[in-house]
């Protein structure tokens, strides 16, 4: 019995100290962590609405969206949080669009798809070679936007369609990521459903 008490007290002490240390540290970094969590969403909203002057947030029935206005106070677009289950994770996208459903820009904010396949939806194309460090060669900057996401810009949400061959100009076609049709389709479905719901909600007002 004496031993048991000793065990319990030891473990209790270790756990208490650990909880104390962690709460102390957390109080120091809490602001930073929460800022990071919000930053991802805020950056995405500002990006998809081309830096609006003001953002108003709406959240109802599980639909989360934002309304952006420019400097003159004129409506500049909606941003909406779109979600759909992909291959191995839930894909979360913030899509910006105007009132008739033409996409301004999109940004994928969360996914954990297969590296090398679906995860390429967040990969930026690079033209920098490792040898450049030795030869000292400077290269022109390439688009900092992942090539998969860039395809959505300026397209109408209703026309979005996943295709396997290079997409036709002026159509709503999105070229699938190599070997990741499910992930690509999920991204398109998420945006279609998200913007669809948003317009329905706004149209009924």
């Amino acid at each position: 019995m004496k031993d048991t008490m000793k065990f319990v007290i030891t473990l209790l002490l270790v756990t208490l100290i650990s909880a104390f240390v962690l709460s102390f540290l957390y109080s120091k970094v809490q602001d930073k962590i929460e800022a990071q969590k919000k930053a991802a969403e805020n950056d995405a909203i500002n990006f998809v609405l081309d830096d609006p002057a003001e953002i108003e947030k709406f959240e109802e029935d599980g639909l989360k969206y934002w309304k952006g206005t420019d400097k003159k106070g004129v409506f500049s677009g909606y941003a909406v949080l779109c979600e759909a289950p992909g291959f191995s994770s839930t894909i979360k996208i913030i899509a910006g669009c105007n009132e008739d459903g033409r996409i301004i820009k999109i940004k994928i904010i969360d996914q954990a798809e297969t590296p090398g396949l679906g995860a390429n939806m967040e990969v930026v194309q690079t033209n920098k070679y490792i040898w450049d460090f030795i030869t000292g060669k400077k290269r022109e900057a390439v688009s900092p936007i992942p090539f998969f996401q860039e395809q959505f810009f300026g397209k109408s949400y209703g026309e979005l369609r996943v295709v396997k061959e290079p997409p036709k100009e002026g159509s709503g076609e999105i070229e699938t990521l190599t070997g990741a049709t499910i992930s690509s389709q999920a991204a398109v479905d998420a945006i279609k459903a998200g913007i669809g719901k948003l317009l329905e909600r706004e149209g009924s007002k």
Partner: protein
Amino acid sequence: MKVLKIIKNGILSENPVFRLLLGLCPTLAVTTSANNAIGMGLATTFVLVMSNVIVSMIKGFIPAKVRIPAFIVVIATFVTIVQFVMAGFLPELNKSLGLFIPLIVVNCIIMGRAEAFASKNNTFLAAVDGIAMGIGFTLALTLIGGVREILGSNTFFGYLVLPQSYKPMLFFILSPGGFFTMGVLLAFFNWISSRKKEA
């Protein structure tokens, strides 16, 4: 002299990945790029060093029967600290390592070293052992990550290696490629050590 031996042990003769075969889950899961591999290696090294130090400090106070749960709490505490740092300051790395950061808790290297080394040696040696094992782990991960990244996506730390017209072998980035690369590298190190023995 003992310090040098511990360092050599951790990095070469008892390399946690290739010789002791510990901590294979993160070894295979996060080595899709050299960047991720280094991030995971350093995070694990931090936890390993800190838990070794604390365990060697408190070993006298903990009754033998409850040492395992007590060690687990110590390890989990440092893992949580790593999670704080990742979430607050390295959001990109946090995202790509994902689930495998909390899973450092169950990385057998850390528990293994706490049991086999730190609970039997003084604090200084335990810290050295933690650093040596951590470096050994990080180097092994970076090697696997480097090989997989170069072969599988034709980049190294995000920079292209061969001209873009070369299409990389996607296989190496995918999960079968992880097992395969690890298997071949393991055989390679077996070969080296068997040659040493003969010589």
